[in-house]
């Protein structure tokens, strides 16, 4: 409130003081310069006038003197004629101003209004102020030949009324006369007063006009001031609202001065984002907050281009890594907007922390890629599976068709051969179906997992006896190199599947007359089971692909046994279900190894 009053007083003072000063200066200059100047000019004019008139009279006397010299007239006649003419000479206001003549004695020769003085000595005649008028006149003409003298004298022929007078006196040497004439100062004053009155009237009109103009200006100023106050109030409210908006914005907002290369304003969210106080932020080189994978120069050029766009009035939006005071890296979506300012290039930058969004996007992208890859793997896997199912069926169908058609033409050896192939194909299909069903149940989570303490040697012997036929076909020996009783804590079905698949694979990739060895080593609460053979082995580059669903391919054994590799996937899954590991080594033949627990030291899966 006091601030408003203070402003109001300033306006009053700034407007009223010049008005008062102007008017005062005008009045003062009027009375102390204009009027005295007028008076001086008037008096100078009068002086000039009376001196000129005196010169005229002097010329007239000079003419008479010339006539006297020429002998046209006697001196006395000339003097009398001259006195007569001069006595009645009048000029000025009311034709009251006159000439007088006295000689150098001094004695009055002629005075038109005071004939009593004619012929009388004047050396003792003084005005009321004690001025000896005629002696002083005599002194003037004797020293300078002519001159002005002011004194007091009677008003015309009124000897009572004594008024100030200014006279000019000039000597006419041939006759020893002094001619004088003067004007009444009152007449001059009257004229000056007349001028003064006119000037005062004009001045009043001017002052009134000026005052009216100034009042109008003042009123206008007041109106403007009032308007300004309203606008200022609105501006103040807008500023406050803007501040509230900025301070409560969900984004971090900073105002950056390109010319000073520093932040000039930051909102609370910016303090939070950069992890620093307002003061620290305003005093830190903003470049230290931003990083890029680009080379420094290229990054600077990129930033420059973005600022250039903003300066042009565009609103560039871009993502950038912001490293705050706590060294934390955030991914921000930054939007630049130019702020109007006459002196500085200001840019408002709003930062939207999209780190989480980016991470989510990355995760989605990764998941999408994973899903796509899984889908492709699944398609690939199913196409292999379809192939491996069709192939034996195709063989069975075609072989039986041929048998049906040509059974009478074939000899018994051919028929036996056909039946053997049909049997191999059917067995291969059945094994594949078994694995497939097991795998499907495992994938859908329907496969029960009931680990229990088992005698490993017994389980292993059961499986080996089941595989005896296929091993004998290729004349392969299976050795269980376990001398003592070894316990294992496992699900019996899963353990059997693992052993059947690994032993069956060993037989498949071992040449006629080879051998397959089962060996068990116990270490603490785990056993490592090794199933090795002296077969064809596995190429080094294929070792990593064996347990990968994406790398499945039809494989053919040493006796052209078929298989999808699904069995190995099952082995891996079942071993891992027991908390174990499976791997393969291949040097001379293959050596598949897997670990299983001997006691219940894991949670049920």
């Amino acid at each position, binding site marked *: 409130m006091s601030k408003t009053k203070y402003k109001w007083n300033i306006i009053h003072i700034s407007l009223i003081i010049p008005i008062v000063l102007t008017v005062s200066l005008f009045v003062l200059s009027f009375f102390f310069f204009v009027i005295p100047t007028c008076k001086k000019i008037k008096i100078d004019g009068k002086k000039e006038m009376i001196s000129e008139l005196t010169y005229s009279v002097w010329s007239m006397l000079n003419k008479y003197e010339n006539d006297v010299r020429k002998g046209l007239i006697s001196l006395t006649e000339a003097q009398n004629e001259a006195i007569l003419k001069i006595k009645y000479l009048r000029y000025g206001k009311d034709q009251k101003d006159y000439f007088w003549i006295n000689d150098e004695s001094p004695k009055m020769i002629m005075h038109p209004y005071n004939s009593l003085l004619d012929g009388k000595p004047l050396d003792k005649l003084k005005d009321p102020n004690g001025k000896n008028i005629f002696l002083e006149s005599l002194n003037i003409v004797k020293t300078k030949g002519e001159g002005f003298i002011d004194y007091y004298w009677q008003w015309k022929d009124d000897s009572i009324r004594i008024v100030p007078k200014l006279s000019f006196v000039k000597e006419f040497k041939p006759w020893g006369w002094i001619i004088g004439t003067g004007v009444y100062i009152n007449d001059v004053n009257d004229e000056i007063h007349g001028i003064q009155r006119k000037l005062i009237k004009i001045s009043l009109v001017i002052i009134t006009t000026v005052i009216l103009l100034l009042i109008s200006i003042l009123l206008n100023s007041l109106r403007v001031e009032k308007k300004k106050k309203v606008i200022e109030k609105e501006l103040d409210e807008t500023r406050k609202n803007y501040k509230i908006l900025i301070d409560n914005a969900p984004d971090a907002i900073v105002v950056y001065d390109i010319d000073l290369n520093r932040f000039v304003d930051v909102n609370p969210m910016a303090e939070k984002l950069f992890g620093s106080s307002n003061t620290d932020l305003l005093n830190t080189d903003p470049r230290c907050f931003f990083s890029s994978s680009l080379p420094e120069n290229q990054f600077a050029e990129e930033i420059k281009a973005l600022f250039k766009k903003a300066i042009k009035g565009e609103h560039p939006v871009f993502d950038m890594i912001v490293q705050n005071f706590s060294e934390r890296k955030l991914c921000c979506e930054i939007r630049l907007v130019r702020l109007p300012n006459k002196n500085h290039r200001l840019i408002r930058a709003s930062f939207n922390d999209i780190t989480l969004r980016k991470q989510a996007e990355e995760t989605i992208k990764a998941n999408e890629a994973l899903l796509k890859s899984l889908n492709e793997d699944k398609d690939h896997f199913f*196409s*292999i599976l*379809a*192939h*491996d*199912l*069709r*192939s*034996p*069926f*195709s*063989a069975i*169908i*075609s*072989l039986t*068709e*041929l048998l049906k*058609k*040509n059974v009478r033409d074939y000899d018994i050896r*051919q028929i036996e*051969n*056909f039946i053997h*192939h049909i049997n*191999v*194909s059917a067995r291969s299909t059945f094994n594949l179906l078994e694995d497939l069903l097991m795998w499907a149940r495992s994938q859908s989570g329907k496969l029960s997992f009931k680990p229990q303490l088992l005698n490993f040697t017994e389980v292993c012997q059961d499986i080996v006896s089941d595989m005896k036929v296929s091993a004998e076909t290729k004349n392969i020996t299976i050795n269980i190199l376990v001398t003592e009783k070894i316990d294992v804590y496992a699900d019996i079905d899963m353990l059997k599947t693992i052993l059947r698949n690994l032993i069956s694979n060993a037989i498949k990739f071992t040449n006629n007359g080879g051998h397959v060895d089962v060996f068990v080593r116990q270490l603490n609460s785990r056993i490592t089971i090794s199933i090795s053979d002296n077969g064809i082995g596995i190429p080094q580059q294929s070792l990593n692909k064996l347990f990968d669903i994406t790398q499945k*391919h*039809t*494989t*053919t054994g040493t006796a*052209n046994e*078929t298989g999808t590799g699904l069995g190995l996937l099952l082995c891996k899954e079942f071993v891992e279900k027991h908390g174990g590991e499976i791997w393969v080594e291949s040097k001379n033949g293959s050596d598949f190894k897997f670990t299983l627990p001997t006691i219940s030291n894991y949670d049920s899966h």
Partner: protein
Amino acid sequence: MLKKTILIIDDSETSLLLFKSLFEKEEVIIQSEINSRTAGQRIRDIRPDLIVLDLMMPEIDGFQLLEIIKEDTELKAIPVIILSALHDSKTINKTIHLGATDFIKKPFNVNEVINTIHNQLKQLENKT
């Protein structure tokens, strides 16, 4: 008239047996190759008039072998008929793109296979 030679390349012994049995009464010479790794050399050695090729084989698969045949200036003129249990449209298109002449899906009808092979041989005769 010279008997035409057909080379069947398949890693399945059953398939080879089947194919031989199918054409044993026909006026053709059936040659078989179970190992895809040595199949390329076998083709160069016997220069068959027609190749019947399986796709899913270990080490070198049918696609790679087809590519090898079609890139070889001396072998590329030999027509190749694909015989496979893998017969989705993507696979069929891929083999046609690589230069296969025809595609027989497994399981097949024996008469259909015989007819397809015969047609192909007839076309070869017409050419010569």
